[in-house]
């Protein structure tokens, strides 16, 4: 395992204080602009959903079907990423709008909101990239880190990754059941069964909506609607898989052992979030469709700041990192995703002899101006 960047505890505290200050400044500035932005996104999502479902009524006409699927896919992507993920992080709790409260929001995906809040907000965001604790490392299915033991099962890594991508919403839904831990006896069966019931109830809603009610309402075009809805669900799955895997698994992103993070300070937590995340470069539409998770670094540093603020504060975060000689991992979607695919394939095989220099996965700090 590569060494942590060489910061003294004092430097680490100063680094944390700078980021705390940045967070406080954004918090103090929250207001109408942020709510207006999110309401616009929500209105767009609703319009896309209405347009998509409307077009699928005449889905027998190929261009209408294609346009309908596109609109519905975008609606589901906006719902899950820029709206659902971010609202459930509590980014808009301060608005006191009952429709935007993290504790009650529900989204259009198979995973029940309360379970996702546990597996994501509690486990993943607290124990980010800590081996054995952050179950987002491979979702209990994939081998995503050299330190995860190789077994022949790992040979299936690329195949499993494709399946996980296609069925991502179900992967996320089953995530909090911790089935692999039930097998090893570290998770109680009762808890898993209870959570499983929650997932089933949620899946039933989605199935009834996308595969019964809307096809039924389409009358003779039922099959076109059914196929369109299924395609939109899969398109959303592929997109969210891509964005999320690019956030933590490109080369250069670091994992941590429990010993390394024991007793870590606020600055240490910030440092781990920084080293454990990667950004994706892109235009503003790309950022919105990614739920601004293209700014995974800013998101992990400040998970409860409204995500549309991440692009605004990114230059400042980058400048702070540069001052402390810390890496800031960013690259194009093609580069980051290519790197994720390479890792999935490479880790299908045993580690093999580690060559000198290869184990050190922290890249040299890139110039923030680059």
């Amino acid at each position, binding site marked *: 395992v590569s060494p942590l960047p060489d910061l003294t505890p004092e430097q680490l505290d100063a680094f944390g204080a700078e980021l705390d200050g940045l967070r406080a400044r954004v918090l103090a500035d929250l*207001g109408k602009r942020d709510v207006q932005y999110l309401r616009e996104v929500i209105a767009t999502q609703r319009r896309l959903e209405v347009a998509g479902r409307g077009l699928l009524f005449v889905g027998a006409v190929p261009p209408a079907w294609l346009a309908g699927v596109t609109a519905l896919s975008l609606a589901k992507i906006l719902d899950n990423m820029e709206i659902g993920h971010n609202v459930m992080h*509590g980014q808009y709790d301060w608005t006191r709008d009952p429709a935007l409260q993290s504790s009650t929001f529900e989204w259009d995906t198979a995973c029940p909101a309360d379970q996702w809040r546990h597996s994501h907000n509690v486990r993943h965001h607290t124990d980010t990239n800590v081996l054995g604790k952050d179950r987002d490392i491979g979702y209990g299915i994939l081998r995503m880190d050299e330190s995860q033991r190789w077994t022949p099962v790992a040979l299936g890594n690329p195949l499993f990754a494709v399946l996980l991508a296609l069925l991502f919403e179900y992967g996320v839904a089953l995530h909090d059941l911790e089935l692999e831990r039930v097998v090893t006896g570290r998770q109680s069966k009762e808890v898993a069964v209870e959570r499983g019931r929650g997932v089933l109830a949620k899946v039933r809603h989605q199935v009834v909506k996308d595969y019964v009610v809307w096809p039924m309402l389409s009358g003779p075009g039922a099959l076109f609607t059914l196929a369109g809805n299924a395609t939109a669900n899969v398109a959303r799955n592929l997109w969210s898989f891509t964005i999320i895997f690019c956030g933590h698994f490109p080369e250069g992103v670091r994992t941590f052992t429990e010993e390394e993070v024991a007793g870590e300070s606020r600055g240490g937590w910030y440092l781990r979030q920084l080293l454990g995340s990667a950004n994706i470069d892109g235009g503003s539409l790309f950022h919105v469709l990614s739920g601004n998770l293209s700014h995974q670094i800013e998101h992990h540093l400040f998970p409860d700041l409204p995500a549309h603020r991440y692009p605004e504060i990114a230059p400042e975060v980058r400048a702070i990192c540069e001052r402390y000689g810390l890496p800031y991992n960013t690259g194009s979607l093609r580069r980051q995703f290519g790197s994720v695919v390479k890792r999935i394939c490479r880790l299908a095989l045993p580690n093999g002899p580690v060559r000198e220099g290869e184990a050190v996965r922290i890249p040299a700090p890139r110039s923030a101006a680059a």
Partner: protein
Amino acid sequence: MHLLERPLRRAARTRLAAAAAWPHGVDAFGALLDPAWSATQIRATVTSVRRQTADTATVVLRPNGNWPGHRAGQHVVLTVEVDGVRQARCFSVASSARDRHLVELTAKAGPGSVVARHLRQRLVAGDVVDLSPPAGDFVLPDRRPPAIALLSAGSGITPVLSMLRTLADDGYDGDVAFVHHARSGPDVLYGPEVERLVADRAGWRRLVVTEHDRTGDHRGRFAPAHLEAAGIDPAGAVAFACGPPPYLESVAAGWAAAGGSADRFRTESYGLSPSPTRAGGAAGTVRFAGRGAPIDVTDDGRPLLLQAEAAGLAPAHGCRRGICRSCVRPLVAGSVVEEGGVRVAGGPGSTVRLCVGVADGDVEVDL
């Protein structure tokens, strides 16, 4: 749209509609066409805002079809968005209970009143606000007594004005005395309208008392003599009084002194509840409210989650370091400082993260 409103609302409440609009609900889509529309919620469109006096706003609202109508004297909770944050406050309805498609509110914009200031300065016709169903038992009885005294001070005029307007619409032929106390002549709310209402009807009269000028019928604060001057017989009339607590205390005393019985004297008080923040450096009290009896502990300066647990409570929580928001709870009253010095003020809709929230003075958290 009006013809279709009712059937649309009925269709929107069906299980089929709920299944089709899951998980966001029918309202999420209805709002695309009409922001005031809802299958179940009461929303209202602002039709006018006028400034009767130097520090008040009188707002006329057109509620959607979910408004059940109010009884004269009841209040509603109005929710508006101020700087992106939803703020809810309670106001008495001033309009007649017979106007079932209209809700009029008058708010006094004091220095700290975020909502009333918003109503006065920024609300415009066409804005959409949220309303609660009407509530409160400060209402005209269905069996009208033969003599009614309507007493108010300042913006406390609204519920008794609703009563006066309702009595007028109903053609009530009993005896009505309307006594209003204001700071000065220019502060008198609804003056011309009340004057007109009482002028038309036999046995109806009005008395205005102003504290700082001579524009009223009398000058000063409430005095028992005002009851007599208005021709009120406390031994026979039923009184409805609304105003700040000190006003109500003196009216109640005057009523009793003049032989009025307490069961014919109804009051509605308004005004801020005492601030829970304690001045000085003394340790405050942290109150954990919930389903059972509230638990009070002396603040020891630690995060609220730790203090709740020390008190034997077990609030839900997650990361315990301010990240996951599993321990977000309503902050009923008081002021809490979260990490990084971010201050949260208590009140309706206000929430706090227990694991990083430290009390500043007395606070009350709803667990």
